């Protein structure tokens, strides 16, 4: 899966650590998701969507 986490973070001027704190996960997790090495579970994907105020499909795409 591809994702737009890095762009969305940059737009908000958040570091990986900032996003990790908002999601209550480790910075290592944010890094792994952002680089496409780990696909988050559905509950975590919903949390990510809520943090950015966007629908899941605006953040993750299946290609």
């Amino acid at each position, binding site marked *: 899966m591809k994702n737009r986490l890095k762009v969305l*973070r*940059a737009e908000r*001027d*958040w*570091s*990986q*650590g*900032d996003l*990790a704190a908002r999601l*209550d*996960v*480790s*910075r*290592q*997790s944010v*890094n*792994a*998701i952002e*680089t496409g*090495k*780990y696909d*988050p*579970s559905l509950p*975590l994907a919903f949390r990510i969507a809520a943090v950015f105020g966007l629908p899941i499909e605006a953040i993750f795409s299946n290609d």
Partner: protein
Amino acid sequence: MVEDSPLPPRIGPAVVTYVVTLFAAIYVWGAYRPAGLMLGLTIGAPVAALGWLARQGYRRRRMGNCDNQAQRAYTRRAVPLMLAYVGALAVAIWLHDRIAPTGPLAVGLAVLPALPLIGVIWALGRLLVEERDEYLRSLHVRQFMIATGFMLVVTCVWGFLETFELVPHVPMYWAFVIWCAGLGIGTLVNELRA
């Protein structure tokens, strides 16, 4: 924006490099008594590896994955249990030599050192249950699966070599030691894939 470090820390490769270069240096020193540039390389390699290890440790702290409740709880449980294991083993050997017990007492005494190790297995299970970060939990699961596979391969091969009288008998508790060595391989694989 705070600078991100795109690469995760590589503790496993750094530990392996340090151990390999250290043992290589000990071997080279014993076998060749090097001088000059060779002596510099022999000493320099493990020192450089230690420096790399320290740097990876610093990056790991920066990544913030040390401040983790589940991992802290595991350490809080595992360290006293490992100390209890050393104590129980010493007590079991000492009593066995002194009073040469028989019957149920002998069985109880023999099983005594295994009890803290069972505790460590329980603590490892709790780590999986209590880890709230799903990515870190997936890393633990992969590490445990690699350790289990490694233990099964080693014990299987050793068992047949033993059956055909090609290697000496090894007590079964070594399975746990081999599994722990497999955890090291699992850490290495996790970090190489990260």
